């Protein structure tokens, strides 16, 4: 089992990680870190290099250059020690079809240096945690549904109480109930283990992760807390207003309260009501007074709402810009 060793600054650290296949660059100069106990979302479009990065971090693939550390141990120079602190669930979660769940987990526990006396207890514990006891116990892995196979993969990852868990698309192919279950499970690891999780379900990542790392075409384009990235990548606040006022009337009022605001008409609704979009800097105090000012000025107003910029917007904004534009953390 992962022994107690002095806590490093970063549970996972990638320093200028590069992987080339001949002339093809899979990842280039990738630098990021995951703090102990932190849950980090690792995002990027298809082919961005997420799985390659995760495979290098897990020690199953060698990088071309750069350094990778797991719990302070070099993945390349000290693979056994780094693997002792880490568990990795690959994208398609390959499992042997002809073993029973308990048999497989017991074997994996022994291979992960779990004390032989504790193997049975650990297997029972992770099976309970991953809700495998009731419906998967005693069954061959080959007979399990996709959801339960994913649970077996996660149970395997948690077996040896690693310091770092790397999960490549853990919720792929799962139904909403199963996703919810896995999300809660991952959330429960916060503070205990550092989790690096790649997923295409951005809503999922936003709900679970403390921080995100976004890569595009093998290069880092953004990393940080969602709020910080929102400020960095989406500096403007956008309001949608449904009003009977004219564009000029509304424009004059908005410019009065915020000089740099812009307004445009984006549609018409029956009965002379128009839909407008007002954009102003997120830092502007007018964000808080806009609604009050409109009412005070007697503008006929039916609806006003600030558009929420989710991780999806951040992801799109980040993957649109070139890697050189990103600000270093």
């Amino acid at each position, binding site marked *: 089992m992962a022994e107690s060793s002095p806590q490093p600054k970063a549970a996972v650290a990638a320093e200028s990680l590069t992987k080339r296949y001949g002339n093809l660059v899979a990842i280039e100069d990738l630098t990021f870190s995951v703090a102990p106990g932190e849950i980090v979302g690792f995002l990027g479009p298809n082919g961005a290099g997420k799985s390659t990065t995760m495979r290098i971090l897990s020690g199953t693939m060698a990088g071309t250059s750069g350094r990778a550390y797991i719990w302070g141990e070099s993945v390349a120079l000290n693979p056994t020690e780094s693997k002792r602190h880490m568990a990795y669930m690959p994208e398609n979660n390959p499992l042997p079809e002809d073993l029973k769940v308990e048999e497989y987990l017991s*074997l994996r526990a022994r291979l992960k*240096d779990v004390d032989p006396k504790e193997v049975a207890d650990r297997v029972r514990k992770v099976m309970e945690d991953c809700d495998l006891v009731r419906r998967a116990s005693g069954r061959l892995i080959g007979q399990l549904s996709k959801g339960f196979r994913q649970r077996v993969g996660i149970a395997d990852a948690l077996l040896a109480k690693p310091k770092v868990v790397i999960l490549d698309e853990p919720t792929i192919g799962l139904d909403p109930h199963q996703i919810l279950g896995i999300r809660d499970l991952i959330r429960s690891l916060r503070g205990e283990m550092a989790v690096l999780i790649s997923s295409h379900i951005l809503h999922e990542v936003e709900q679970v992760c403390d921080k995100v790392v976004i890569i595009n075409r093998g290069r880092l384009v953004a990393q940080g807390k969602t709020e910080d990235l929102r400020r960095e990548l989406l500096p403007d606040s956008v309001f949608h207003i449904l009003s009977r006022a004219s564009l000029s009337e509304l424009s004059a009022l908005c410019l009065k309260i915020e000089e740099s605001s812009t307004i445009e008409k984006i549609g018409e609704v029956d009965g002379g009501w128009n839909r407008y979009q007002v954009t102003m800097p997120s830092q502007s105090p007018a964000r808080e007074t806009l609604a009050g000012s409109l009412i005070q000025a007697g503008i006929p107003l039916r609806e006003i709402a600030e558009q929420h910029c989710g991780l999806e917007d951040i992801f799109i904004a980040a993957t649109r810009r070139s890697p050189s534009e990103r600000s270093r953390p």
Partner: protein
Amino acid sequence: MHHFRTLLWHELRTAFLTWSNWAAAALFLILVGTIHWFAILECSRAPQPWTPVEATFRLFWLPLLCVLPLLTMRSFAEERRQGTLSALLTTTASTAAIVWAKFLSAWITWVVFWLAFLPFPLLTAARLGTPSDTRLGDPATLWGGLCFIVVSGLLHVAIGILCSCLTRSATLAALLTFITLLGLTAAGGAIESLPIESWTWLGWLREPAAHLRTFGHLEDFASGILDSRPLILYLTGTFLCLGLSVIAVEGKE
């Protein structure tokens, strides 16, 4: 060799439970049993310069080429195809331990197959022979032949493991093993049969060819001659193949 024992135990258990190994065992026993049966029939018709046991061992290449590739083909190729090999490599188990565990498991299975052949001549001798009659087979030939299978099996299985490391397709691995074993078994005899003496520029081949004479090794073992040269040949070949297998697994993952 971290976790070697855990992996070996797992591999042996898997080997015992895999249906394809049971099919291979059935094929092996049918092949060897048929060879032995026809050899007994031949001997019963007219006196032969060989015994049925000798005849069976002389045709050892038949089960070697037909059955052994079935035992080794899945070891790495199938695991790589399914992705379970990379999952195994994320644990603290060393690549060498994984290779050696798979090798030893396949070698033990191969030896067990041949041990399962033992009742054939023993039962035949018990039913048809008399204690002093060696026409059905000399016990020395039987045990010597088995020793040859055990020792040469090390290299043969190691070749199968290496071939399985080189591809993701179990079928291709079996084919590669078949071709390599065929070449190895036939090479010594083929080179020996060439008129090397008349080709002076090929004279240097004479000695290496003498070392590769697989059937000569079988005869030596069966007659109780324990020559260290074939032992060294098979052991060094085994270590070489397994070393290359470790490199292939680490390189390909």
